[in-house]
């Protein structure tokens, strides 16, 4: 293996093969978003009657965008578990010795996470369409929404890989997923930002995921809002956690000797 691209593609192929051969590994990333979608769209739709709730797409669409972002972030985080497991089994150490462009490893894991999330996103979208989700946006809007989610997927896998490369143990799993979970839920999940009151409104306003969520909802309803800010947040998150992951890789290299 010589080029970074070849390393990334080979690793992504291997990860997808492992996934296909072990459906149990695929179940949690698939089940959680579906569960969230059914619970929120089914159980909370009355929230659209709260005074001041304004969203043209209806509550199913409103919730769908959050669940899509959640699935993207967690598909990335679950890939971090795989990185840690690869270190525990010794596979990752052998990879570090074998490849010449080690940054290709992170790209490979990121590509696997993206492929894994794409599968989840397709199933989730089909379920949402069956649940009569309204799509007001045109083709470009919809591509914009999925691109924002892909940024979050990328940020998620880079964050979790950074932890995995530093700890090199699956015991770091809570550290990978808890902050992501909190960051997601500290955004306007159930109602628009204007309807949040108190400390959660301030936290949500400062949370970059809020802008991804609001822009995504705008795309889906056909009224894009804060698009530039959302893409800047997405790119910023991916870049920041990219540095975090690559510094983690250097640490893993030093630990491997």
């Amino acid at each position, binding site marked *: 293996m010589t080029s970074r691209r070849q390393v990334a593609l080979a690793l992504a192929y291997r990860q997808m093969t492992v996934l296909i051969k072990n459906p149990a590994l695929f179940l949690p990333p698939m089940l959680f978003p579906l569960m969230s979608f059914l619970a929120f769209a089914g*159980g909370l739709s009355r929230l659209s009657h709260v005074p001041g709730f304004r969203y043209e797409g209806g509550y199913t669409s409103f919730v769908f965008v959050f669940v899509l972002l959640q699935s993207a972030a967690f598909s990335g985080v679950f890939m971090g578990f795989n990185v840690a497991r690869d270190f525990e089994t010794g596979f990752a150490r052998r990879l570090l010795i074998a490849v010449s462009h080690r940054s290709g490893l992170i790209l490979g894991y990121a590509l696997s996470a993206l492929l894994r999330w794409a599968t989840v996103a397709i199933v989730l979208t089909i379920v949402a369409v069956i649940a009569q989700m309204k799509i007001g946006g045109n083709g470009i809007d919809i591509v914009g929404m999925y691109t924002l989610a892909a940024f979050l997927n990328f940020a998620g896998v880079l964050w979790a890989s950074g932890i995995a490369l530093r700890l090199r143990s699956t015991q770091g799993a809570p550290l990978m997923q808890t902050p992501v979970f909190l960051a997601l839920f500290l955004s306007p999940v159930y109602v628009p930002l204007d309807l949040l009151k108190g400390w959660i409104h301030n936290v949500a306003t400062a949370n970059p995921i809020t802008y991804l969520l609001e822009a995504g909802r705008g795309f889906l309803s056909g009224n894009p809002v804060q698009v530039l800010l959302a893409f800047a947040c997405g790119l910023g998150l991916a870049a920041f956690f990219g540095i975090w992951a690559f510094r983690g890789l250097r640490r893993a290299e030093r630990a491997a000797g």
Partner: protein
Amino acid sequence: MRTLSQVWEIAWRSIVRTMRQPAQIIPNVTFPLLLLAINSNGLRAATHLPGFPTSSFLDFFIPIAFMQGALFASGTAGVDLARDIDNGFLNRLALTPMRGVALLLGQLGGAVALGTIQAAVYLGVGIAAGVRFETGAAGAALLFVLAVLIALGFGTLGVLLALRTGSGEAVQSSFPLLFFLLFLSSMNLPRNLISIDWFRDLATVNPVSYMIEAMRSLVIEGWNAQALALGFLFTVLMIALGLAGSALSLKTRMART
């Protein structure tokens, strides 16, 4: 050795083992609290819905912390037993005069201990955060008892899963299914305010709804005999069915070994 002494020996081992894993206890206790803090603020707008039973979403939502804690306790009980099966402890125990009932009840010691700690913490934090019980101190005490019983009930399901599969991974993979029961209940809104018919029907046939509503009634309604009777009935049924299923599975597993 009498059966009671045998139960105590195994229960003590289970309690000590659980308490020696702070990495397991701390997230199990704190995660429901974080969700309580986030959701009680994020969903506060729901109190503006006509017919919502209270003006405080914290009062409405606090039973969910107990339910989530109980679900986590079930995972602990199941994974610990699966580890005993995996490392041969159960096989060695089968060579002793230990009775099956002692093994089953004893294995639940850790889950009950964890459930008790969780219930005490959630009750203390809830009251400190401003939760007011319409039923007073007696209601708070009854909620505590019900919460521990629910933890025991879910613990029996964890043990059942462990005995049937013999694998910690399988128990953990089944965990989302138990969480699904919580998601498809009246956890976020009262059933009469759920506007999607299929979701309301599912929540109505879901026993978890009645456990939540029994706890909730103590906080926001006052003494509601029907809600309490249904909550305790389904909890006791879950314990009985979980133990009966576990006893059958234990026989099969002992026969295999």
